[in-house]
């Protein structure tokens, strides 16, 4: 029987070997984080200062001014009075229910996360569009980032950087950046070949082609990617609160553990309000920049 046991039972690794492997990897990583953790933390210091500065800015500015700025930004991007009024009312309600400070914290981290996603994601997307090899390498990485449970990659991040804002925003970035990258790549690849050829025929160099043709024509797709990134970043707010990111996520986490339904619902709704605001504003802005597409099919 000993000879055929591999058929009925999976011939798995020796238990001792597995333990040794786990211990070895964990130990190696712990050593790595002990020796380099500080250096890496220092590397992220500017980011931390920026995060803290931006959060303080939002918190210390009188609420009325923040509200006015938000409404002005909404109107500037969308040129819609209806949307601007909606944003004003939503934020007044959020403040009235005592969630102003947490909302500001969440707003700050989402804004920074979005900004970082675009500055990192856009160049990666452009690179993927230019080379098939880059695409073949980056695509599986993006697949992993999107499907790997967030808790799993929280472990090494926390081991390396501890808890706080920086590991929180890194976790948010890992989860939220893939849509910008994917849709930038897709958008550029879908750009009309005839138009690109025309630019080449007039002597445009690769940079001129990128900025005068590829990016502008890929913009609808890129904006869709940015929109998705913002939504996914907001979805990470609760998980990020588990590693010490303050904001609307923490009360939600507290309500889960203590079964405070109303508190959870209110904070959850506040997240939804921010999400809707970001979504509508960014879409209205995208639509406005795509004005030339009007009447494209109308003949």
């Amino acid at each position: 029987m000993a000879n055929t046991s591999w058929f009925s039972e999976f011939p798995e690794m020796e238990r001792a070997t597995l333990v040794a492997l786990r211990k070895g990897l964990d130990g190696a990583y712990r050593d790595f984080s002990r020796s380099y953790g500080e250096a890496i933390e220092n590397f992220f210091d500017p980011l931390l200062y920026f995060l803290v500065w931006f959060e303080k800015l939002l918190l210390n500015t009188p609420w009325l001014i923040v509200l006015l700025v938000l409404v002005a930004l909404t109107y500037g991007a969308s040129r819609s009075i209806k949307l601007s009024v909606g944003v004003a009312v939503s934020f007044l309600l959020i403040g009235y229910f005592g969630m102003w400070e947490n909302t500001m914290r969440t707003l700050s981290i989402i804004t920074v996360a979005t900004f970082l996603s675009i500055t990192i994601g856009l160049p990666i997307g452009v690179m993927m569009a230019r080379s098939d090899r880059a695409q073949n390498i980056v695509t599986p990485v993006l697949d992993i980032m999107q499907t790997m449970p967030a808790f799993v990659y929280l472990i090494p991040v926390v081991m390396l950087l501890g808890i706080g804002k920086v590991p929180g925003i890194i976790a948010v970035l890992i989860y939220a950046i893939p849509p910008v990258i994917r849709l930038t790549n897709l958008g550029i690849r879908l750009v009309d070949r005839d138009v690109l050829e025309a630019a080449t025929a007039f002597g445009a160099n690769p940079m001129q082609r990128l900025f005068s043709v590829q990016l502008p024509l890929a913009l609808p797709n890129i904006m869709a990617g940015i929109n998705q990134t913002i939504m996914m970043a907001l979805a990470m707010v609760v998980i990020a609160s588990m590693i010490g990111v303050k904001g609307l996520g923490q009360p939600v986490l507290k309500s889960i553990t203590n079964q405070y339904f109303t508190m959870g619902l209110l904070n959850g709704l506040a997240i939804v309000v921010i999400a809707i605001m970001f979504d509508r504003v960014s879409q209205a802005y995208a639509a406005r920049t795509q004005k030339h597409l009007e009447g494209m099919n109308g003949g």
Partner: protein
Amino acid sequence: MAEPLIRIKNLYKVFGESPRSVMPMVRAGRTKADILAETGHTVGLKDINMDIEKGSIFVIMGLSGSGKSTLIRHFNRLIDPTEGSIYIDGIDVMGLTQKELENFRRTKVSMVFQRFGLMPHRTVLENVAYGLAVRKVPKAERDMKAREWLSRVDLDGYEAQYPSQLSGGQQQRVGLARALCTDPEILLMDEAFSALDPLIRSGMQDQLIELQGKLKRTIVFITHDLDEALRLGDKIAILKDGVVSQIGRPEEIILNPADDYVEAFVRDVNRARVLSVDVVMQPAHHRLTTENIDEALRQMRGWTEDYGYVFHDDEYRGVVTQEALEEACEKSAGPTAPLHEMAEDGPTLEPDTVLQDAFSATLDSDYPVPVVSEDGEFQGTFSKEDMAKVLAHDNAEPSDSPTRTAA
């Protein structure tokens, strides 16, 4: 003869994994189908040679798949050849570096595309100015030039529109203005009018001919439409399966097709609309340069025909018939009037008249109609019989046997 502006020599283009490896087969004369079956490579262009004169419209004509669009993309190296050389205005285009090539495209050549290739996110004005923007010309200057060109293609007032708001014909006029705005020496037009409605297409052809009359650029024009080729081309190259079948002036191609393929092509051409009098006229003869009627009569009696063309001081004056001269001699016993005063003013044709405009003059006349150029030079004659012969596609030698005509 001056150097041609564009010279293409022994140009080959093979598409596939490793084009160079199949070049020996191509040069050995293996067929396209053979090479495709054996190696999976497609022969796009085979041994193309052409010279294009400065200031002419050179039309490359062929059906789809003949390689014409591939060929035109070699002129500015949007496609690189597998082998061969391209010289433009003395520049070895194949020897240019990337930077030099960009500069070459910015200044020497520009292109008009079949599907326009306009940038949908830029206004009409920004589209026209694009070539200059690439060249980093200051905005005020390039906008001024772009406005100027827009008005030359009759699109004043459309500056702020987006291309999608324009009709197809208008969009292609924007494409044309964009190409001309960089002030290029050479204009490449890739089936530029093929996507347009027939009526708009012929309007665009008129506009191009009119512009070319003033600008005298060198235009390489691709088309699959023979009528368009004959209308625009100073010279036409006919391309079939990546090989040039014939290069020549329009009338040469119609009257002397090089092979069956070209002949099949030109068979249905409306010759009356395409050919002009000077390419089918007979050489000048029956000239009467004397003043004296008796002398003229003596000359005429030696001819088989009973009419003559009268010249005075090297200038064409009219026609006289033998009958009229004899009558005049009988009437007056004394000295007669000089011959050129007796000449009748008959119809004349100008050398560049197309046949269909020459119908009435030719058919109404009893004798071959003299062909006289604008400055009064007598170039030849054109008769009903000549007309009939040309229009009956009887383009072989005059000694044609009746059996062939019947067939």
